[in-house]
Structure formats: C-alpha cells, structure tokens
C-alpha cells in the first residue's frame, strides 16, 4: 500500500531473504531488454532524484556495481537507465539505491514507448515554423507594395518553401482528416485540411498566372499555430501518462516456480500453468489464483476485495491473484493460469464496459460537426452567387476560397486544446494526472460521486486508536518489537511508539505468522500478537484483539482502526455542498463501512462484489445520472471503466490506475474537488472560446463573402483570433496560480512521514 515506499516489494525481511533476493534478481532480468552485444538495459524509476548531487550519487553507486556498463540518470523523468553485461546475474540495483537512501522500482520501457508521435509533432512544428517565418518575411515585402516582377518572384520563392512545408508539416492533419472521412465521420481536421489544401492550390494557380494575391503565408502560418497547440497538448498528456507509468507496479511480473525435481525457475506470469508450485516470500503479491500448500502467513486483501483487515492464510486457503502476502513465506499451488485469474476476469469486465465510454464525443468534434457543413455550404453559396452575379468563374472561386480561409479553423482548432493544456498543466502541478483528453470534459458534467472505501476514503493502513490508554513503557516495548515485522498492525505500532525508547534489550525476535512476534530478553519472554496466543489460556475469558504480554501476563491491549485519508471529510462535505450525490461502494464488511459512512454522513453499500460495483454504476447511468467513480482496488477497475468519469489514487492497483481518467499522486483526497473545479472552469473557458470563434466569424465572413479579403486581411484576422483564443485560455492559469510545491517534493514529504496520524 502507499505507506510502503515504492520498491518495498523488494525489501523483504527475515524469514526468506534468499528466495526474495532470487525473485528480485529474476524480476530485474524479466523487466530488462537486450540492447545487443551481451548488454541488457534496465530502467528504474527513482522518484527521489531532484538535484545535481542526486545524479552524482545515484550514478556513482550504480556504476560501482559489478557488471554495470553505464548508468545514466534522467532528471526530467526521474529515471535511471542502467546497462549491464548479461554474462552474470544482474547486480542488486534497487538494493544499492535503497542503501543510499533512494526509493527505486522497475520501470518497464516497452519498445512502443519511444514516443514517435511526439518526435513527429516537434519536427513538423520546426518545419512549419521555418516555413512560416520565411514566407511571412517575403509576404511583408509584397504587402508593402512590390512591383509586379518582384511580387511574382517572391510568390515563386514562397511557393517553393510552402509546398514541401505543407506536405511535411500538414501530414498530421491530413492523416487524421482522411481517417475520419473514410469512416464517414468528420472532425476538426477535415475543414483544416480542406482549407489549407485549397488555399495552397489557389495560390499556386495565382502564382503561375502572375496573379496579385497568394495565400501561402496564411496556410503555412495556420499549420504552425495549430501545430503549437497540438504539440503542447501531446507533451502535457505524455507527461501525465509517464508520471502514472512511473508509479511502482503492484502486480507480480512473475514467480519463483519449484519444479518436481526441486529446481527453481523464475517464470513470467503468462507461463505459469495450473498445478505449478510457487514459492511466495513475505511482501510479494500472489501472481495467479492459487491455493496454499504449506506455510502460514497473513494476507492483505485490501487492493483485491476491499477487505481492510489482514486475513489468515493456512494450508488450503484459496488466494486471489493480487493479494499481498504479509508475514511468512508460503508455498502455493496455482489453480488457474494468468488469463483465467481474478485479474484477467476484471480486465474482461473492463473491456466490456469501455465500449460505452468510447461513444462519448468530444466537444471539439461536436463543434466541428456543426462548423464544417456550415462553412463549406457558405463557401459554395458564395461561389455560386458570384458566378451568377459576375459570370467570372475565376473571381468567384477566389472569393469562395477566401471565405474558407477566413472562417479560420485556426481559432476553432486552438479553442479547445489550449484550454485543456492549461487545465492539465494546472492539475499536474497539483499532483493530479489527466490521462485522457476528454476526461476533463466528462468530469465537468458529473452529478454523482461514488467512493470506494478501503484505500480511497481510507489509506488502507491501520492506526493505533487507544494510544493514550496504553502505558508508555509498554508502548515503547511494543514498538521496538513491532519494528521487526511488516504486518500492518506492527507498522502502526512502530509509528505510534517511535518517540519512546524501550528499556529492554531483546536477544532474539521471531515472527510467528498468523500469531504474532515473540522476543526473548535476559529475564522474560515478550509476545505481541493475537490475545489467544500471547496470553495462553487466560485469553479466552478476556476477548480477542492484539495484546502485548510478558511471560503470559497482559501488559497492554491495542485497538486499531483504518486511517481516514487526509482531506476525506472536507472533500465529502465540499462535494455535498455542491449538490452532488455522494455514496460509498465497498467490498469490506458491513460494520466497517457503516461506521465510516455514518461519520461522513453518506449513503453506503457494503460487501459489494466487483461485478456488482460495475452494475451499480451502470444502474446509476441508466437512471440518467453521470457518476464519477473514485476507487483504487482491482475490484474497482470494472466500475472505474464503466463510470462517466473516474479517478484513482497513486496507490491504486495497476489495472485501476490504467482504467482511471485521472490519477492523483498525493495522499490528500481534496484532489477530487480540485479536479472538479478546474474541469468546470475549463469547460466554461472552452465554451467562451467557441463563442469568440463564432463572433469572429460573424464579422469576418460577410467581409469575405463580399470579396474584400486580401492575403493581408486574412493574415491579420487569423493571428488576431488565435491570440484572443489563446489569451482567454491562459486566464485559467492566472485565476488561481497553482498552489503548493511540485509533485515530487510532495511525494518526498509523504514518504518521510508515512504513518503520521491523519486528523
């Protein structure tokens, strides 16, 4: 969960260090890729690097490891690329970084991840910029009154620059327009492409016949402006996506399989077949649905079912893929292949749900659908009108094309993306990643908010609630003991008692999975754990719970409660104040959910199975509601995909993160109302921008129809409207300069005080 620093999956303790090390090593190999010549490359996400000194220490530490050929930090993406020789097992990269104080976890770079789209956009932008500036330079000379011979020469040079520029830089738009047309649809790129191509065609004709007006500058500048918007949009989206991808992966990549002859093989998750025996160290996640064969431990099911209390695991216990093994090593037998596991079932439910959302049409496309026919019809009518009125075909065509140019798909083309870039940027600074372009539009229209409980409204980490009733010395002893375990209750105790020093020295500490911790000092035996085990026979009369006992005598009793996520109460209150319906959908027990729901004052449903969560969301949509789902678990994933819009915390299961439209990286739940506010403001600005474009057209089109448009007028009109639209979009930024520090510094502090009390 979010309290264990990213990479904690590797920091496995005591009982089975050897298995854990082997698993970690093989996982590194599995996530790496060959770059040829016996060298493999591994990428690690290291969220903690933030300065030149960090670069130095990380690179030095890694380069000192055996087999490392090169280690290079990328400070912008907070990643380090390590190249290592394949002739030996990979060195413990993550452990080496942990040792010098940096969290690190594997970052899988697929081959498709190299961002070709962005490179293409930037190249197209550079070419368009070059073309636009040079042509504009020549055009200014023409406008200021060049003689016909000079004018024709300049037109020819312009044509020479414009044709290749449009062919190269315009591909982005032409391709998208062609795709839309082929499927019988229309989008913003269709009028843009038609406008640019007709303008270039007409200008070429004019140039050849020594005409006075050529629109090369208008068409190339149009491409340039639009490419700026498009590139910014892409870069912003990509940054958000990378930030989400850089989060620690919570699903297992593979598992250590024990063959019948005792050999141990690390197999990727897809190759694990039912019947195989798997060694599962404490701190690892169950790779596929399985049954426990031997060993004893406790399981954290919070991410899988929403159950907040650790569950015991004994031989025969059925495990669902994704469950976290907490305290002891287990040998388990796979009961299903990965593609039939719980996780795969969730994926299928999500795919079924996603069909519904793709039906959403973005506001820009809806605008284009109205805009394109109107503009094209106007141009056609103008052309016919002029032919009838003057009988001059050439003149009629020229004016019709001028209408197409002046109606300025530029303002329309920039109206929506610019606002979204600014909005996404503002949210990025607040630690909210917008993964999908239409997400903000959808988010702005929601009227119901559905929260998951465990891990969303709560942090999924227990907290000691009766700290004041526990005698201080007992608490100190318990904390010192608990430091030896990764059980959630132990963590809570360690955090609660970290300020007092225990006056006992333990000689040995052993963890008994499912029972608790036992420590021996010179005088006594301390036991921390289940009352029945720690107190022996005396416990039955005394009730259950977690206790600290000395030689079987009760020292202290501890009560735990799940921590509320910071900002949860204010968030729910703020959402209710905005008139939104709020409810809780949880897979946890009724009692746990009831208490929380009562505290927050919202409706709830407990014991909800994953399928039923999605069904509830679907039912809400049936009623005509637009639900926002906020959830983190595997069991929430189908509901996230079904909902009108969805958000997930950074601690969510991988599938959940990928299903959500927005991912918030900070612990505070106030990200939800903040994202809502920004989305609504953005929606308002988008509508304003479209309004500006319409008003502009109402003025410009009559001028064009009457035939008064020259290339100079077109250039001024186009730049003017674009600047207006961009300026309006920037108001979103100035209205409320994004509060708080950058994403990463926040994560830093969050990691430094993970267990501090919430309220």
């Amino acid at each position, binding site marked *: 969960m979010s309290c264990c620093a990213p990479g904690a999956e590797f920091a496995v303790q005591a009982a089975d260090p050897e298995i854990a090390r082997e698993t970690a090593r093989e996982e590194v190999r599995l996530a790496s890729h060959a770059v*040829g010549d016996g060298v493999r*490359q591994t990428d690690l996400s290291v969220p903690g690097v933030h300065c030149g000194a960090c670069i130095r220490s990380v690179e*030095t530490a890694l*380069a000192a490891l055996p087999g490392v*050929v090169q280690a290079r930090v990328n*400070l912008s993406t907070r990643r380090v*690329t390590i190249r290592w020789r394949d002739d030996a097992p990979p060195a413990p990269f993550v452990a080496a970084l942990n040792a010098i104080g940096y969290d690190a976890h594997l970052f899988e770079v697929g081959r498709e991840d*190299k961002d070709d789209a962005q490179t293409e956009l930037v190249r197209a932008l550079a070419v368009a910029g070059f073309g636009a500036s040079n042509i504009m330079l020549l055009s200014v000379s023409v406008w200021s009154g060049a003689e016909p011979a000079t004018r024709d020469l300049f037109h020819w040079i312009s044509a020479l*620059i414009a044709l290749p520029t449009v062919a190269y830089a315009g591909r982005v738009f032409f391709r998208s327009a062609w795709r839309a047309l082929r499927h019988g649809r229309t989008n913003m790129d269709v009028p843009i492409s038609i406008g640019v191509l007709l303008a270039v065609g007409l200008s070429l004709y004019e140039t050849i016949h020594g005409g006075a007006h050529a629109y090369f500058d208008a068409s190339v500048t149009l491409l340039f402006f639009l490419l700026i918007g498009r590139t910014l949009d892409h870069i912003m989206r990509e940054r958000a996506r990378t930030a989400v991808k850089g989060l620690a992966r919570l699903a297992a990549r593979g598992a250590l399989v024990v063959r019948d002859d005792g050999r141990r093989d690390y197999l990727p998750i897809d190759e694990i077949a039912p019947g195989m025996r798997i060694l599962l160290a404490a701190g690892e996640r169950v790779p596929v649905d399985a049954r426990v064969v031997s060993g004893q431990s406790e399981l954290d099911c919070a991410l899988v079912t929403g159950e907040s209390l650790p569950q015991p695991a004994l031989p025969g216990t059925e495990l669902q893929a994704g469950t976290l093994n907490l305290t002891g090593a287990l040998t388990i037998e796979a009961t299903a292949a990965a593609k039939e596991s719980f996780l795969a079932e969730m994926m299928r439910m999500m795919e079924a749900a996603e069909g519904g959302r793709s039906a959403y049409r973005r506001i820009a496309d809806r605008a284009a659908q109205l805009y394109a026919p109107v503009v094209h019809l106007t141009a056609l009518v103008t052309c016919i009108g002029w032919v009838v009125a003057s009988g001059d075909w050439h003149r009629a065509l020229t004016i019709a094309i001028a209408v197409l140019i002046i109606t300025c798909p530029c303002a329309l083309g920039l109206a929506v993306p610019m606002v979204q870039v600014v909005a996404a940027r503002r949210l990025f600074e607040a630690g909210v990643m917008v993964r999908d372009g239409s997400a903000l539009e959808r988010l702005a229209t929601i009227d119901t908010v559905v929260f998951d409980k465990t891990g969303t409204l709560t942090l999924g980490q227990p907290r000691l609630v009766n700290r004041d009733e526990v005698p201080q010395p007992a608490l100190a002893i318990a904390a010192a003991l608990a430091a030896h375990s990764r059980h959630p209750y132990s963590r809570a105790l360690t955090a609660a008692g970290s300020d007092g020093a225990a006056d006992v020295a333990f000689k040995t500490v052993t963890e008994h999975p499912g029972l608790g911790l036992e420590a021996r000092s010179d005088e006594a035996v301390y036991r921390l754990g289940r009352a029945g085990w720690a107190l022996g026979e005396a416990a039955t009369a005394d009730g259950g719970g977690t206790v600290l006992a000395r030689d079987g005598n009760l020292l202290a009793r501890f009560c735990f409660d799940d921590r509320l996520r910071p900002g949860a109460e204010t968030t729910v209150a703020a959402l209710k104040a905005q008139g939104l319906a709020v409810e809780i959908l949880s897979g946890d027990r009724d009692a746990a959910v009831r208490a929380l729901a009562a505290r927050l004052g919202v409706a709830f449903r407990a014991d909800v199975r994953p399928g039923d969560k999605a069904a509830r969301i679907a039912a809400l949509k049936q009623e005509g509601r637009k639900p926002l789902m906020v959830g983190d678990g595997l069991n929430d994933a189908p509901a996230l995909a079904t909902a009108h819009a969805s958000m997930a915390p950074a601690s969510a299961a991988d599938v959940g993160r990928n299903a959500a439209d927005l991912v918030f990286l900070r612990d505070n739940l106030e990200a939800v109302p903040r994202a809502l506010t920004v989305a609504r403001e953005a929606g308002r600005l988008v509508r304003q921008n479209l309004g500006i474009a319409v008003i502009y057209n109402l003025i410009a089109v009559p001028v064009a129809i009457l035939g008064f448009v020259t290339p100079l007028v077109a250039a001024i009109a186009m730049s003017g409207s674009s600047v207006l639209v961009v300026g309006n979009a920037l108001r979103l930024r100035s209205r409320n300069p994004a509060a708080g520090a950058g994403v990463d510094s926040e994560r830093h502090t969050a990691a430094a005080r993970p267990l501090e009390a919430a309220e």
Partner: protein
Amino acid sequence: MTDYFYLIPVAIGLGVIGLGAFMWSLRTGQYEDLDGAAERILVDDDRPIQDPKPQPKADLRPHRAVHR
C-alpha cells in the same frame, strides 16, 4: 533586383541551417533531459558518453565505463 539573387538564398540558407541544427539536436536526444543538463554542468568530472541516448537501432559497440 540583382541583389536578390544572392540575398534571398543567403537568408533562406541561414534559416535552413538553423532548422538542420534543431533537427540534429532533436535526433541526438539533447532535449531528453533538460533539467539534468542544467545540473550536470556543475558536475566536475562529467565526461561525454559515447551513446547519450539509448536508441534501439543504435550502433552498440562495447562501451567503456566512463563514470568511474
């Protein structure tokens, strides 16, 4: 008028050189880590590495470890 015949090619030629330089710097990955580049100038013994940006198709001769 005759001045155009060298002035215009010179003007456009300069633009093309700039464009080419940008394309080159883009291709060699010089915009991959702007924050890092800003910090690295303060690192004393930072020497260039042979293959700054791992390209899947790049020439992959054995590298010498350049950072001790």
